[in-house]
């Protein structure tokens, strides 16, 4: 897999483990403004992103209307379904795969608390501060 090749490059980016992508191996290209921008390579729950080398083959393509849309998603300010309803993102090819990947990536950028009880503890600590 491509992920493996890139993972072996010592100076390159290291793959991230994403539990919600466990069991999934696929390639998702992200185009911005109609131009290939990023390639996300997923191999059994690990994922690696790198600049796309042109219109590379992929299982799915996520079309984004602007860099700002991508940035807002990464900041956790843009829900992916909202982005699709607004016409700012849309999947092509294997749409289910694209949705699964971007849903999963939400948790990478914004890891949730471990549980409701942990959240209450966090909230309590925040209030005390």
């Amino acid at each position: 897999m491509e992920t493996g090749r890139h993972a072996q490059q010592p100076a390159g980016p290291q793959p991230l483990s994403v539990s919600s992508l466990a069991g999934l191996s696929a390639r998702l290209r992200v185009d911005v403004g109609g131009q290939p921008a990023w390639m996300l390579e997923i191999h059994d729950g690990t994922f690696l992103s790198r600049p796309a080398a042109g219109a590379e083959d992929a299982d799915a393509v996520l079309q984004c209307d602007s860099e700002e849309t991508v940035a807002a998603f990464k900041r956790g300010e843009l829900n992916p379904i909202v982005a699709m309803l607004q016409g700012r993102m849309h999947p092509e090819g294997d749409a289910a795969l694209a949705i699964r990947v971007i849903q999963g990536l939400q948790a990478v950028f914004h890891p949730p608390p471990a549980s409701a009880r942990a959240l209450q503890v966090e909230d309590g600590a925040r209030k005390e501060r």
Partner: protein
Amino acid sequence: MRVDTVSIMDGNEFVVSDARGDIEDSPTDTLGLFRDDTRFLSRWVLTINNLRPKLLSTDDLAYYRVNFFLALATGTIYLDSRLSVQRQRSVGDGFHEELTLVNHDKQPVELIVRLEAAADFADLFEVKDDDLNKKGQLYRRVEGGSLILGYRRGTFQRKTVITSSSPAQVSEDDLVYQIAIPPNGRWCTCLDVTAISNIAQRRNGVEREAKHDHGVTKPRPELEANLKEWISAAPKLVSARMSLERTYQRSLVDLAALRFHAGVIPGALPAAGLPWFMAIFGRDSLITSLQALPFVPGLASTTLRTLALVQARVFDPFRDEEPGKILHELRLGELTAFEERPHSPYYGSADSTMLFLILLDEYERWSGDRALVASLEREARAAIDWIDRWGDRDGDGFVEYERRNSETGLENQGWKDSWDSIAFADGTVASTPRATCELQGYVYDAKVRTARLARLVWGDPAWADRLERDAEELKEHFNDAFWIPERGFFALALDGDKRKVDSLTSNIGHLLWSGIADRDKAQSCVRHLMSEALFSGWGVRTMAVGEGSFNPLGYHVGTVWPHDTSIVAWGLWRYGYRQEAARLAVGILEAAELFHHRLPEAFAGYARAVTKYPVEYPTACSPQAWATGAPLLLLRIVLGLDPLGDHLIIDPALPDAFGELQLLDIPGRWGRMDAFGRARHLT
């Protein structure tokens, strides 16, 4: 919704008009062409020589097609009309309408035919709340002989394109035809009203441009073929009681009509109901799929895969989203797109996650489709994690809910989700967080079933052991904490202060379905369920007569919901109370006959002995998916159908009222099986 409306639909796309075929939006009527939770056409009015043709009859040909027969009135009863008008309409990417005028006179006639058109692009929530306040720009223009009605708010775009096969004078308000029809001649035009949005990937993969099918006698032939295939794939019901067969057929057709093709996952899942709930609902889609499993199993696999795809991954209070939770509702309209509503998706459902696990197991039991179960292992584990880590908020061992979105979130997150549904016997509404009893039953059942799958499919016996231990501990704890000994039934809920909410409600029947109730306690619950306080003679009331909040017209505090009764009957059956289950089946199926074979979502909780017929609930959705599924589940129950390994157990307990019953070609892991049953005196 007013009574004299005519609806045609296909999934989340539907057209509601008056009986003439006209659409005039008003504060009181939900008329229009709707798609993706948006009204793409709010005005569609036909006049001929400035007169509105009068209705002769409406022919509801199929769920997706309707004929309106009209005539131009002469203004006096002494002169016959000499012009007949026919509007044949079918839904699909908007709708297609064939307008035919026939001149019955011996003289030629000159006419001005006008179709007024407008679109307000209201979000369905704006229609429902009668609060239309568009923040974007509406526009209209004529382009290449077509009328374009559009709405734009930033990148959010929706458009309606209206084209005609006959030349028309097209303005921004209407299409006008100046025509002459010879003696005994006819004139015809086709109109395509196409709804276009820039949402992600369309269901059919493309945005259809307006097209003409002039001369095609049956528009949308693929829908007709698909419906035939759907019906022929389902088991055949043979009964001496014709009305039962009609109810069964109606259920199959309505389920076909409610199929929602989300486009991302192959296949369809049931939308919840017309007109307000033509969307993906976790709970509704899951329960309907459970009810329909022995008949149309394909709904279950699509429901499971679709809900798994959008299972919550993050913590988001606005959407009441917590990792592992299964969604409550997904909407596609403007208010959702701009986060004025949280439905993208909204996760404010405390039971969908357990129901997801229950359906996953029940689906495997019927279909033997282990590949699908294997593919959803991660989601099943995440669902169990949600129950333990998030559903049980305070670590007391019970799942409870309290909305995090206090502005637009749901106050009640069980199936009885109206504000006053969880109340004490004196009528006081319970404080939050609320741990309703059926949620605990669902958790018990979900863990027992997930344990089975863990052993059978996922090869994790240690996890299975742990799940079974958890389930047993929960059962013991629940039977202690929820039981009200002085009244002899389980509390509706524990409130925010862990007090038992002591109203007698139908929820106790769900406990039988889940298997969490101890045998001796179940017996006492059965007495209550079959008492005059809960059983109206048609079905089980949501709340018993005599409770402080009881109202026979209260949405969740006294009405009868057919799906609820079908689940209660399933519970009775599970605990061996087959005669009682059969009585409920007879009540609901006889009510269906009086509702023209289509059960509404709910009806009034008046006693059958008093009214002799079931009284309608004023704003009930119809068709409603889980009401449509109720007759199917009741048939399963009276025939005693249950898988055992690769075999189908058939153990009928038919009421006298049903005589003999045959259900042929029941699909499942055994291939196809036939079930026969005949009434006998039940003991």
